[in-house]
């Protein structure tokens, strides 16, 4: 334990290309980059599928079967095929982040009470308006939920990507392992746990801030009438 405290208080570990600020910055950069690309691809597709109801089964099956894909294997295979560097691991992170975002967006839009959508249509809203002003805000809790699990997935996988020479906080674990420096490994894993927990809390706060207050009591007091869809 003393060695870990020593590692954290050693000024050498807080500066330079292998310092905590740099490694943390790298990790955040990979996470944001992969999440943004995944969101740009998955959210529009999820919205469209949720709105039209077409291909929903395929999305859910795809998301479920991709969960079985060993992320470490995908990373290693991509690095082996396309060489080490930034692109192969980022591609792997994006591929792994798409299913949760897609499933969350689809489920969010799909779970919106059909009566609300019908009311919007009755009020004269066009399809685009229904999607952006009714389905999107109503589905936001599940959409952000999908982004949250994708983010955790990316942070965890970016850690493993240090094995295929990516930077970020995972470097401390991989580098520490190669020289049997257990203090460095432990410090890296503590930093990673903190990063993941803080990020998730921030996203939870964001979820609370962005979701319309009108949705909260309604969600708690009555279960969503999912079956209405089959009846209508």
């Amino acid at each position, binding site marked *: 334990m003393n060695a870990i405290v020593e590692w954290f208080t050693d000024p050498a570990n807080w500066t330079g290309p292998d310092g905590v600020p740099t490694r943390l910055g790298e990790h955040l950069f990979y996470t944001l980059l992969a999440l943004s690309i995944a969101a740009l691809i998955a959210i529009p597709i999820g919205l469209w599928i949720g709105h039209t109801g077409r291909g929903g089964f395929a999305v859910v099956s795809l998301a479920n079967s991709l969960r*079985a894909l060993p992320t*470490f294997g995908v990373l290693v295979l991509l690095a082996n095929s396309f060489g080490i560097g930034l692109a192969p691991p980022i591609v792997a992170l994006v591929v792994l982040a798409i299913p949760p975002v897609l499933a969350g967006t689809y489920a969010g839009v799909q779970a919106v009470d059909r009566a609300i959508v019908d009311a919007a249509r009755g009020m004269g809203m066009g399809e685009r308006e229904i999607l952006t002003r009714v389905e999107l805000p109503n589905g936001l809790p599940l959409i952000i939920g999908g982004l949250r699990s994708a983010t*955790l997935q990316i942070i*965890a996988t970016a850690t493993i990507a240090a094995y*295929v020479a990516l930077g970020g906080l995972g470097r401390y674990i991989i580098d520490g392992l190669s020289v049997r420096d*257990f203090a460095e490994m432990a410090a*890296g894993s503590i930093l*990673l*746990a903190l990063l*993941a927990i803080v990020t998730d809390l921030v996203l939870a706060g964001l979820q609370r801030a962005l979701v319309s207050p009108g949705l909260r009591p309604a969600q708690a007091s009555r279960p969503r009438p999912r079956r209405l869809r089959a009846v209508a």
Partner: protein
Amino acid sequence: MNWGWIPRNLGLVAELTVEHSWLALLPLLLGLLISVPLAWLATRTPLARSVLVTATGLLYTVPSLALIVMLPLLLGLQILDPLNLVVALTIYTVALLVRSIADALDAVPSVVVAAATAMGYTPLRRFVAVEMPLAIPVTVAGLRVAAVSNMSLVTVGAIVGLGGLGLLFTDGFQRDIPAEIITGIVVVLVLALIVDALLLVVGRLITPWARTGQAAGRQR
């Protein structure tokens, strides 16, 4: 692509598959055994529930490699002890299951619980014979998610030198044998699909009422 690697190493693949399976499934069983009483506790008091949900939620966010590296220090084990991996995956399984089982227990209609009480069931017997069976479908759904994710997570252990099919990834990467890496990915996928299907079938078999009762039981 040296596909010749596969026929030459079938024995190794089989050996690692067996090791991989128990490394993934033992935590699943342990996780289930731990989750049921915890979920029961969560349904008793709101305080226990919020503590359990928060604690398991936090544990679930910790990246797998970080947890595998941290556990030897916390448990006083050698880094190469497979027990680290078993404990890490048990933690993830519990984190996944506690919340969903607690929700499922809450969803048991209160009239059913009241009827069982009126028939003379003691609280423990009522839990075992009435409430828990009604929570099986949700529990099985949670177990399927945990089983599939465990199958994939075991491979992360190979980074620190633990066993299982992940060794095909580290070895294939170091010796530049793509066929070895692909074999590992495919076998892990197949294992996950088999366990997922098995759990689905077992879940259906032990809840015969869910099949016949779904249409009739909903009506009042």
